[in-house]
Each structure stands twice: as structure tokens, then as C-alpha cells.
């Protein structure tokens, strides 16, 4: 047993959780300016933002939201499996990573279809597209990192069990955070005045 600066396993676990939550606070502030830019842009140019939103593929966006929320479920079940020392941890990690990859694949196909529409946009609609690509792009980078970490956990899954599972738990919290960011991005970009589309 390596020496640690902690008096007990419980204290160590609390430090791990505090660490990831403190990191998530910096993440909130990292995404923050883009959210502010969106609020400002939409209040000053509401028509252009609605016009931009009508170019979004709402079916794919809704499907992707469902996929990402399902991946959060499989991740949460994976954390529960690790805590219980169950073998099913590997299965849940594979499912989580595959759902993440499916999300990225659908997102990439959307980018592909939208690339020609951006070329025709002008004025404040370009601001909409800039925010759309910047925010969903930054989100996709976070998800890619998340998939990488889940794959790493899968490779070392035999290390984790009832006694030690902090890496799985901390990754889960990160994964859910990325899900929460998307929960806000989805209506901001896909759902503006759908009734008039």
C-alpha cells in the first residue's frame, strides 16, 4: 500500500470528488463567455438567430440529445457496477463509449450538411453560426476526451472494485457534466420558433 497524505480511504475519496467538482467550476466559467455571447446576440438580433436555427436538423439534434442522455444512464450504471465490484463494469463502459461515438458521428454529418449553408449566410446569422460551431465544437472536444478516458478505464477495469473506484466515479461526474452542457445547447440552437419553420 503506497503512502498517501490522507488519513483514511474516505478522506481520500472526498478529496477526489472535491477535485473534480472544483474542475467543473472552472469548466462552467470556461463555457460561460460563449453563453453570454449567445444571450447578447439573440437579444440584439432575434430574427437572424431564428433564421439560423431553422437551418438546423432538428430530428438529428433531438436524436443526439436522447443518445447522450442514454450514455449518461449507462455511465451511471457503470459507476454503480464498479462500486459493487461487478464484472458488468466493462459492458457499461463499452456502451457509454459507443453511444458517445454515435453522437459524434451524427454531429459530424450535421456539420457536413451545414457547411454549404454557412457559405450563404450573412450578417448576424454568421454570429449564430459562429456560436453554434464554437459551442457545439467545444462540447464535441469535451466528449472526445471523455470517450478517451472511458476507453482507458475499460482497459484497466480489473483495477476497480468495491474498495477502489475513484477514477470511474470521477469520470462519471465529468461525463454527466458534458451531458448537462448539451442539455442547454440543444434548445438554444435547434428549437427557436420551430412552429414557423
Amino acid at each position, binding site marked *: 500500500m503506497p503512502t498517501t497524505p490522507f488519513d483514511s480511504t474516505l478522506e481520500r475519496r472526498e478529496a477526489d470528488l472535491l477535485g473534480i467538482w472544483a474542475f467543473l*467550476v472552472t469548466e462552467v466559467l470556461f463555457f460561460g463567455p460563449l453563453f453570454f455571447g449567445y444571450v447578447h446576440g439573440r437579444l*440584439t438580433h432575434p430574427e437572424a438567430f431564428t433564421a439560423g436555427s431553422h437551418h438546423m436538423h432538428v430530428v438529428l439534434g433531438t436524436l443526439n440529445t436522447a443518445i447522450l442522455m442514454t450514455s449518461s444512464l449507462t455511465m451511471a450504471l457503470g459507476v454503480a457496477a464498479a462500486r459493487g465490484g461487478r464484472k458488468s463494469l466493462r459492458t457499461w463502459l463499452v456502451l457509454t463509449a459507443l453511444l458517445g461515438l454515435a453522437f459524434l458521428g451524427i454531429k459530424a454529418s450535421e456539420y457536413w450538411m451545414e457547411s454549404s449553408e454557412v457559405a450563404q449566410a450573412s*450578417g448576424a446569422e454568421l454570429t449564430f453560426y459562429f456560436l453554434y460551431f464554437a459551442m457545439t465544437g467545444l462540447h464535441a472536444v469535451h466528449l472526445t476526451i471523455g470517450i478517451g478516458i472511458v476507453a482507458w478505464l475499460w482497459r484497466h477495469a480489473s483495477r476497480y472494485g468495491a474498495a477502489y473506484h475513484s477514477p470511474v466515479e470521477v469520470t462519471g461526474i465529468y461525463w454527466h*457534466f458534458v451531458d448537462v452542457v448539451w442539455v442547454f445547447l440543444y*434548445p438554444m440552437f435547434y428549437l427557436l*420558433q*420551430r412552429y414557423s419553420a
Partner: protein
Amino acid sequence: MTYVLTWVGLMILLALTCASSYFPMGNWNSVVNIGISCAKGLLIAVFFMHLRHAGALLRIVAIAGLLWLGILFGLSWSDFGTRTLSPAPWVAR
């Protein structure tokens, strides 16, 4: 089981937020969308991210992030909200 119920709740809220945008409600469309997003975020934070079982320290840290976001939004808005934007000459209007 709690996780599956949380997921069912998230799916119902997703259907609601999507469907609501097909009904013209003026500014209420945005209010409904933001409200449902907050509800989904809360479900994920409380159940999936285990804030339900977290101690006071973790809860304070989680809320501190949102509090600072609010402070910075307020400060930024007091600037951007009270000025006319002067676009650079090369920016197409």
C-alpha cells in the same frame, strides 16, 4: 432503479421541450425551454452526479460555479447592455 427512472424523466422532458417549440407562445417558448433545461440539469446533477448523497462542501462548490457565472453575467451585461455596439468598418451590416 433510481437511474432508470431519472432517464425516463429526462426523456419525457426532452419530448416536452421539443414539442413545446411547435406551439407559438411568444417569449414563453424561451421560458419553457430554459425551465426544462434547468430541470434536466438538476435531475442529472442530483441523481447521476450523486449530489443527493454529497456533503455540504461539494454542494457549496457546485453552487459556487453557478453563482460566479451569474456574477460575471451581471458584470458583463452592465457593460454590453448599456452601450451601442460600434462595428468595425469592415464588418458587413
